[in-house]
């Protein structure tokens, strides 16, 4: 890793607290931030309630979800040896969203933990089907085809499930599930997602050397000591845990998992192992900044955050296709 790349990663790290301060000072109400921080967690003043109960959990959730999506994208690209892989693009997020919809709109009686657990199961089924349907080491086109098919199918099921949901608002909420949102989130959602995202991150950490070995292909990876089902399963579960639990609380936020690993790959010398952590860092930063943008431009008129990330991501995707056609490296 060159010093220039190290500096860039240090800059990303340093940008995190700055973005955090930006996020904490963004919102429809003007608050006295230093005073609110000074008055502490337990204070009853409206400024500190807004800071500690509303803005901080939302910002923390943005960081968590962004990190999970960056991590999930990097792991998925590494596992499928394919730069086009992305949880939202290939239906993993839809799998999680479908499960979350079934739990939330139909299973009111179930306990809170069921939501992330079932969302993780949904994500796992979706990522597993992509993996099986495309076949291991599949070409980019085959992979995207399989992913798009699964994504379309799951999105249709989502619409169907919402259509028959008892709530009057259900049908309009397809937008939320397809684009994601961080509005009105609190510490309860953070606490719900946090343990599962951490668990997913640990699994992917344990699989980092497998992802490195996979740069050489499945056979060589097996000859380097990564044979058997254990490692692919570890990655699949890691992705499902990280992505599934973040979709359960924030909906499907696309493109972070695609754009971030791409931008970060050169910074870590293309190493799929270190890419995981740098993508988590950059994903967290990107989603937090996207949320700051949402808060400062549209305010309570809540443009879905997924729309913002798509605005950033879609042109990037076009660029990827065009440059891929030129370089043949895709």
């Amino acid at each position, binding site marked *: 890793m060159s010093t220039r790349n190290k500096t860039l990663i240090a800059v990303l790290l340093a940008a995190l607290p700055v973005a955090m301060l930006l996020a904490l000072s963004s919102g429809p109400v003007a608050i006295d931030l230093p005073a609110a921080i000074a008055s502490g967690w337990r204070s009853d003043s409206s400024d500190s309630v807004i800071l500690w109960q509303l803005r901080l959990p939302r910002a923390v959730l943005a960081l968590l979800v962004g990190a999970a999506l960056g991590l999930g994208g990097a792991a998925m690209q590494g596992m499928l040896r394919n730069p086009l892989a992305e949880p939202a693009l290939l239906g993993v997020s839809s799998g999680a969203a479908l499960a979350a919809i079934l739990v939330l709109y139909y299973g009111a009686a179930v306990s809170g933990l069921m939501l992330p657990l079932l969302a993780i199961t949904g994500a796992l089924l979706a990522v597993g089907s992509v993996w099986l349907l495309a076949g291991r080491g599949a070409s980019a086109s085959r992979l995207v085809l399989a992913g798009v098919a699964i994504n379309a199918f799951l999105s249709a099921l989502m619409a169907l499930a919402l259509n028959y949901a008892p*709530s009057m*608002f259900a049908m309009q909420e397809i937008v939320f599930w397809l684009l994601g949102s961080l509005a009105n989130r609190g510490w309860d959602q953070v606490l719900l997602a946090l343990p599962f995202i951490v668990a997913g991150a640990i699994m992917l950490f344990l699989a980092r050397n497998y992802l490195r070995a996979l740069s050489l292909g499945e056979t060589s990876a097996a000859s380097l000591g990564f044979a058997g089902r254990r490692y692919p399963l570890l990655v699949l579960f890691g992705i499902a845990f990280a992505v599934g639990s973040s979709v359960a609380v924030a909906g499907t936020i696309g493109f972070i998992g695609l754009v971030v690993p791409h931008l970060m790959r050169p910074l870590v010398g293309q190493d799929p192992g270190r890419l995981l952590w740098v993508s988590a860092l950059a994903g967290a930063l990107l989603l937090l900044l996207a949320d700051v943008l949402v808060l400062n431009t549209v305010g309570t008129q809540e443009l879905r955050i997924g729309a913002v990330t798509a605005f950033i991501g879609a042109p990037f995707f076009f660029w990827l296709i065009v440059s891929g056609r030129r370089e043949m490296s895709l």
Partner: protein
Amino acid sequence: MGRQGRTTRLRAWLICGLWLCAVPALAAERIASLNLCLDQILLSWVPPNNIVSVTWLSGQDQYRRAPIPEHIYLNRAQAEELLPLTPDLILTGQFGAQRAAARLEQLGFPVVRIPDAYSLEQLQAQLTALGKALGPLPQLTAQEKQLADLLADNPSAGHEQSKPRALILSANNITYGSGMLEHQLLTRAGFTNLAAEEGVNQLGRVSLEQVIALAPDLLVFYGGAQDFAIAHLAERHPVLKQYIASGRTYRLPEQLGYCPALAVVDVLQQLKKKRAEIVDAE
């Protein structure tokens, strides 16, 4: 046994007679409705035997308040559905089902358009129009009178200094400002509507941050939150726990939104009670 049977029969005759007296001049015998709110009004105020059809929406769990008698046909606002029922009065709203209404009118059926109500004034006009179309129904006249009484008792004059502040937080962070029926109800009940103070005209959005910053004395939710929806996420946010715990909340019934005629009087009474509680607590 015999004596008891006789009393029962007597009572039955009496009730029949009372019915005849009470509904002396029901303007129509076979009434059909093409509008959800008018459905509900008919079902609540008109004897079921005089209703031939209401819309299918009224049969949905969400809107049904009591089982709908089997002989009432659930229509989907198609003219041809109503033809064989030969209604002698068809009620429809200002909007929706207009094509069916026009068609039925062409075919010579008596169609009456009842104006929608988005304010107390419009509500009075609606009740008058209903009275004209249906004749003097006892519950209708009672409702008209109650409403007039409540409106006459205008508390805003006397209690300038102790006006608790209220804010509506409806699904999807929507709040109701000036010009809305909900605003009128709040002010009539003796509250200041914070949304209107903040310059919201008609509908507006209010974030949780604003709710906390404005710190209303009464936080008013709207509609049922029993079914999950992301739309209700704001009111489930833990930051509102203290409001709910301290009882400083009120929930407007969903019916107020689509059929205020049936809900307004109750809501106004409850809001007045709530206001009294808050003022007493202070």
